[in-house]
């Protein structure tokens, strides 16, 4: 059990680390793009939305990391 927990902790640290928004954000961006594909939105527009969503995730993470703390 200890090894399973350690294995899980290793992969959590490897993929999520100390910034969970950088793990969940891209997944959310892909879900939005997938919904647009399903709605038959033009590929160029869908690609642009995906790109902007990824940029937004990065911007939010940088803001959360550097925001003033009380």
């Amino acid at each position, binding site marked *: 059990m200890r090894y399973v927990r350690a294995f899980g902790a290793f992969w959590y640290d*490897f*993929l999520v*680390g100390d*910034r969970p928004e*950088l*793990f969940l*954000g*891209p*997944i959310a*961006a*892909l879900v939005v*793009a*997938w919904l647009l*594909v399903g709605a038959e939105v033009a*590929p*160029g527009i*869908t*690609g642009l939305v*995906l*790109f902007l969503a*990824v*940029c937004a*995730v*990065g*911007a939010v*993470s*940088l803001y959360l*990391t*550097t925001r*003033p703390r009380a």
Partner: protein
Amino acid sequence: MHILVVAAPAFVASVVEFVEALTIVLAVGMTRQWRSTLIGVGAAVATLVVIVGVFGTAIVVFVPIEILRLVVGGFLLVFGLQWVCKATLRAVGARAKHDEAAIYERELALLSQEPPVATVGMDWISFTVAFKGVLLEGLEVAFIVVTFGASAGQLGPAALGAVVAGVLVLSVGVAVHRPLARVPENGLKFAVGLMLVTFGTFWAGEGIGIDWPGGDAVLFVLLAAYVGVSLIGVWAVRAMLRSRRIPLAVSVGD
């Protein structure tokens, strides 16, 4: 997809990781025993080769390409964004830069607290530290080689990029016999992060059904756009921190 497009990201990412591994290996080898250290390095490299061979081949053979590109693209997006955000914070001084010389000194201090080297046979401390250091740094290389190689259907060129990087870093390390502190690691990590995000967007997009206008050529458009946005990000974060007069990071960092 041209083999250089696959090999280049694997090469640059591998240079960064191998420079970090070299620092650990040099510290162990210089302070304890080279023989056991090199056996540890060899064992770690063999493990990584098995990981790339087994997982890379299995993924290529058994996983449908659409699912592969979605999953791999998603991972590359996550991984790449982490690298870009950390590199941005290092570029503006909000996070400590990777200082190989300082890490080398820290490793030397830690190793000096260990029991003396065995006069005969294996020095298991040298073996373990070298094995763990190379394996952990190499896992990121293996991850990038497998994901890039499998998604592009070009595992060979991706692995070749990593091998060339390994040989290059090892050769320079053997020649100078000290940590490669002058390698611009943060710049390289920034570049690798941007490449990972670019390929991640492209492949994950294909995986969910986006038929990219212009095909593979859109990769260059995406890369240029991400470079532009990230440079704006560096400028914006720096301006924000300056306006708040936040002191620069001075620790060694990870």
